[in-house]
């Protein structure tokens, strides 16, 4: 049986809300970055932009939104398809292994972004 132990907030409403808010943050971030690239920003201006505290906070907010959004979405996929119901007894082995792998990957992404913008 699939449980909610590994869900992002252990609460359906909270996960649902976080996923929607995080998608808005990501949309704003990618639109902003897309606009910068489309307007032909050069390297010097790009560095100057990312050196501002506001941009660092915005990027940090975006990676937080990315990690939470990705985990909530992937957790739903894993608990749909990597289950005892779908894979037999192996489901209860495969799912935690894949979940741990994805959590580690998302943690690496987050730490890497922090190191890039604050390092």
């Amino acid at each position, binding site marked *: *049986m*699939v449980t*909610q132990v590994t*869900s992002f907030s*252990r*609460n*359906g*409403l909270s*996960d*649902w*809300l976080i996923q929607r808010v995080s998608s808005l943050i990501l949309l704003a971030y990618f639109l902003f970055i897309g606009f910068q690239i489309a307007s032909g920003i050069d390297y010097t201006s790009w560095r100057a932009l990312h050196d501002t505290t506001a941009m660092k906070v915005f990027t940090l907010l975006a990676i937080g939104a990315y990690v939470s959004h990705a985990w909530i979405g992937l957790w*739903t996929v894993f*608990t*749909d*398809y990597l*289950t005892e*119901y*779908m894979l037999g007894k192996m489901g209860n082995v495969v799912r935690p292994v894949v979940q741990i792998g994805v959590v580690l990957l998302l943690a690496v992404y987050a730490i890497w972004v922090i190191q890039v913008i604050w390092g």
Partner: protein
Amino acid sequence: MLQVSVYRFNPETDASPHMQEYRVDTAGKDLMVLDVLEMIKADHDATVTYRRSCREGVCGSDGLNINGRNGLACITPLSETVKKNKLVIRPLPGLPVVRDLVVDMSLFYAQYEKIEPYLQNSTPAPAIERLQTPEDRAKLDGLYECILCACCSTSCPSFWWNPDRFIGPAGLLQAYRFLADSRDQATEERLSKLDDPFSVFRCHGIQNCVNVCPKGLNPTRAIGHIRSMLLSRAA
């Protein structure tokens, strides 16, 4: 002659299910799918097994997968579903098959039972009945008409993958029927049992349920109302 392909499985004799072909003479009439099954049972093969009762779309017994779409056999005319003279009849998807077109509905009923589908009111019952205004009564329209045929829940992938955790569209439509009822006093208790990640929030709004409901109901809208109630309660 209509070519009919029927899902057959007898767990006592068959190792696996198979499709059996029949050629049925409909005499050019626009029969209902149930009529075709009755003709097969009477004239071709008496062992074909299916559920049926009222034959007019009220009891919900003959929910089947007809040419890939869930519906009630008794109110689905051939003209609506037959393409290239071919009719394929399978049991409702996602539930264990008992025999041929008969499925075990235990999981479906277990989810219905979870939402406590009865009025909960601890005040003394009046002599005749609990009254409500016409406006409050109108809020139940589009909800109380559900006949529990399971066409919606068994067309929902979220119910296929987690039938033990996700209430499913039929159960959630009924959950909202009692949440919306002005005479019911258990709103808080009902909502507190629905805010886990599975019961309601496994619905991703793909609306297969709306697409197949033989009564024209809209479980997705009811699920949206439940989400709004959960959100208002938490905010």
